[in-house]
């Protein structure tokens, strides 16, 4: 682990900060949520990676989407994602958020989640075990290091398209657009 290299700390404390203190708002959707509590408690202890569950999206920077997302829950997911402060990363659990997984033909589940909100990382496995989650966390570290985990930047640039996709799915949305035109520049 490269956590204690002081040189890296002084180069970019912000990036190191984001790496080693990922406050998670886990969104209890689908069957993945069963995996989160054991990862927090004594046997697997997510805290040693600096990963702590927090109550509100305002305080979080990692968004775990655990399992399939139904049409109704997507509204809540989008709203939570938009309420998170800026450098935010999302990780999808299992195959359902990728392409709908075994609910590929269901009328009520979202097939490709990344059409609506940007996803930085996926964890394979029909509900990955805590070890897989920690591996994902380490991968996320490398992504952050290489500036590749830039889902939130993509969301900001082509917010119009994301918004269009969402409105195509829901018709009129009842909350104002997050980024109006002028503050994008």
């Amino acid at each position: 682990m490269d956590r204690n290299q002081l040189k890296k700390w002084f180069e970019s404390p912000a990036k190191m900060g984001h790496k080693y203190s990922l406050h998670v708002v886990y969104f209890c959707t689908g069957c993945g949520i069963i995996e989160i509590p054991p990862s927090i408690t004594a046997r697997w202890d997510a805290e040693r990676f600096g990963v702590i569950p927090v109550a509100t999206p305002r305080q979080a920077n990692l968004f775990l989407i655990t399992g399939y997302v139904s049409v109704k829950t997507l509204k809540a997911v989008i709203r939570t994602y938009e309420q998170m402060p800026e450098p935010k990363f999302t990780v999808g659990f299992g195959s359902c958020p990728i392409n709908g997984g075994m609910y590929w033909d269901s009328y009520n589940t979202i097939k490709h989640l990344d059409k609506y909100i940007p996803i930085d990382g996926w964890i394979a496995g029909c509900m990955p075990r805590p070890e897989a989650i920690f591996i994902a966390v380490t991968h996320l570290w490398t992504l952050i290091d290489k500036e590749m985990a830039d889902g939130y930047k993509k969301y900001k640039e082509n917010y119009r398209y994301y918004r269009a996709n969402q409105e195509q799915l829901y018709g009129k949305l009842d909350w104002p657009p997050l980024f109006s035109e002028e503050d994008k520049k």
Partner: protein
Amino acid sequence: MKSLKKKLESSFSDIKINITDDSRITVNIKKDAVVSILNFLKNLGYEHLALISCIDWIEENEFELVYILSAYMEKDQEYNEKEKKTILVKTRISREESKFITVINIFENAEPYERELHELFGINFEGHPRLTPLFLERDYKIPPFRKDFDTRKYVKDVFDKIPSIEERKK
């Protein structure tokens, strides 16, 4: 069980009753007698309406509504499986008009069941106070639980139509 069967047959005309092995009675009845039989059974002690479900007989072009009733155990009785008595009241309504009367005034807890049936099967129940959508977010031309609803086609024209961000950008 037998006494109940005799009692029902005596008080209702053209009623078919058969008792399955695990002490459950299924009663098939015409749709206009449903309300009276429900009242009758409620007075007999079957106050618990467990569920209202519906089967879509697409060939006979009919919906079959099933009212599952069971009796609460007395306070002093401790619970054992054999004693548990459940009754299924079945009736057939036509598929085109898909209309039926509500049973809320007999069993208040029928309200969400009827809303679900309305949303997923398109059966509207007259007299129901709030037939608003319960689970689904979007509106469907053909209610999804009907047999003639093709989910794959629906997925193709709704979800696949939504382009990914790169395509939309071009």
